[in-house]
């Protein structure tokens, strides 16, 4: 039996790695949303001044968020042992360029919108395994870079269906390391790929809900916990429809769902016309900033963040394949 693995899918970090610092940068629409004041920087435009492409802006958002996170605790990039990052672009180019800038050992991640929790899980493993003292984790997404890649040109006059979600323009960075106090990373549950045959790129919530269900169930089973052991169980970006589906699936199996929420529900207000809520790597990456703030204010002591990723490729999508989905969970606790 592996020493630090509990049950089938859950890892326990005995050395209790802490979240030392974090930071978030969002676009103007996210800034106008209900969580706007909880982000470190709200851009005035989806394109930074002087940039010739949205990709450049997204890359800078990721990089700047890491720099702010480092500066908050007066560290240098060189103080990090590893950098783990990912985004939604082909070949995760934003992460690659950011890693080029930071100049530290780098592992690129692709887990679609589960990238952040994938990164935090791996950071926990690196630290708990004694391979690293401090690890940087970033994830980003950008409305305009994602839309052009996965759907239509942004200026095209098409009607988005009500099931569609709005890709969050945002980047979040986290530094995980060892410390005496702070918000601690106690467990991670690594998900399995689930595919329920949904092939509609405008309905990712329904596609991802079974993956979230599977991971949350496995997590509770592995640790012998129940829903009520958490102040909040929050999924990454299921959106309005996906959250409804997830709750329905849980109801069917007799679980209570009172403390289930979703980052994609929190980030936009009802008047912002996002249709089914937010999505993208950036969604959980920036909303976690807000959640950690709430934890520091003692509004929540233990949360389970379940990043949900729709592993969608336009190529296989056009070939008629469905969307495989994955979800990874991390447990964060604060008793300060």
């Amino acid at each position, binding site marked *: 039996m592996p020493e630090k693995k509990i049950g089938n899918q859950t890892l326990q970090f005995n050395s209790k790695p802490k979240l030392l610092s974090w930071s978030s940068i969002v676009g103007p629409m996210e800034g106008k949303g209900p969580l706007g004041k909880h982000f470190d920087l709200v851009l005035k435009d989806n394109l930074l001044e002087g940039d*010739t*492409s*949205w*990709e450049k802006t997204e890359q800078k958002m990721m990089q700047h968020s890491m720099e702010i996170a480092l500066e908050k605790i007066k560290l240098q990039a060189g103080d990090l042992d590893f950098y783990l990052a990912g985004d939604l672009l082909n070949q995760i180019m934003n992460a690659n360029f950011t890693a080029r800038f930071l100049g530290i050992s780098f592992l690129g991640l692709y887990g679609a919108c589960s990238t952040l929790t994938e990164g935090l899980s791996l950071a926990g493993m690196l630290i708990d395994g004694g391979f690293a003292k401090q690890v940087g984790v970033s994830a980003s997404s950008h409305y305009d870079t994602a839309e*052009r890649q996965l759907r*239509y*040109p*942004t*200026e*095209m*006059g*098409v*009607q*988005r*269906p*009500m*099931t569609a979600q709005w890709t969050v323009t945002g980047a979040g960075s986290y530094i995980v390391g060892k410390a005496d106090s702070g918000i601690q990373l106690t467990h991670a549950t690594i998900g399995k790929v689930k*595919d*329920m*045959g949904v092939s509609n790129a405008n*309905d990712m919530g*329904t596609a991802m*809900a*079974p993956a979230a269900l599977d991971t949350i169930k496995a997590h509770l089973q592995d640790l012998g916990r129940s829903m009520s052991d958490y102040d909040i169980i929050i999924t990454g970006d299921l959106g*309005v*429809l996906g959250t*409804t*589906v997830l709750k*329905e*699936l849980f109801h*069917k199996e007799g679980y209570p769902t009172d403390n289930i929420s979703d980052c994609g529900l929190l980030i936009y207000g009802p008047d912002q016309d996002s249709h*089914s809520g937010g999505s993208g790597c950036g969604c959980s990456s920036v909303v976690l900033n807000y959640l950690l703030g709430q934890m520091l204010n003692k509004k929540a002591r233990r949360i389970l963040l379940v990043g949900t990723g729709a592993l969608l490729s336009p190529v296989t999508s056009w070939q008629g394949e*469905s969307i495989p989905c994955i979800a990874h969970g991390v447990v964060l606790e604060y008793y300060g």
Partner: protein
Amino acid sequence: MREKEEQEARERLSKRQGNIQPPTVFDENLKTRLEKEMLQDHQKAVMWEAEAVNGGKEKYKSLRQEIEKQQQQLQQIVINNYKKDTQKLAQKQTVVKNTIWAFFVGGLICTFGQAVALLFMNGGLLEKEAGSATTVILIFLGALLTGLGYYDEIGKVAGAGSIVPITGFANSIVSSALEFKTEGFIYGVGARLFTVAGPVIVYGLAVSLVIGLIYYFI
């Protein structure tokens, strides 16, 4: 030895077939057991097939394919059940409202086009010439509104009402041009200008050819 194993695998295969007959509602345990069993048998079949191929024979291929077929059947049942459960949860598209908007905005664009055409005819152009001139004006306006960032806002409420008229065609080309201009004029604008409009042009041409032929013969 191998024959006996194959025999067993085939027996399991036919036994499973009894379980996998749509429409079926599975209990989770049975599903998990079947999935696991199929994975194991499939793995064996792949190995046996590989060994047979190396020995210059074609054997075990049918066994592998039959297991794959079962795996797909099981997956399909699960997919159908999930679809049935979730379909009713999706918020319905507001069809009536969308249709009304599409009718009026589409109608407005066409009325505007007609007015322009009449103006041209008043100015002395023949009906055919006025039609061409109007097309040019509408395409220009569609492109301009796209460039200024208004056309997608119109499209959001009007739907087909602003996609079907020729202004929508202009929008699909100009929006692609704007989108891919960052990749340069060759690989970006040049190569991807017709990403959206391409299929319309290709099949529009194909259909007009067919209709032209029919017209020629009757």
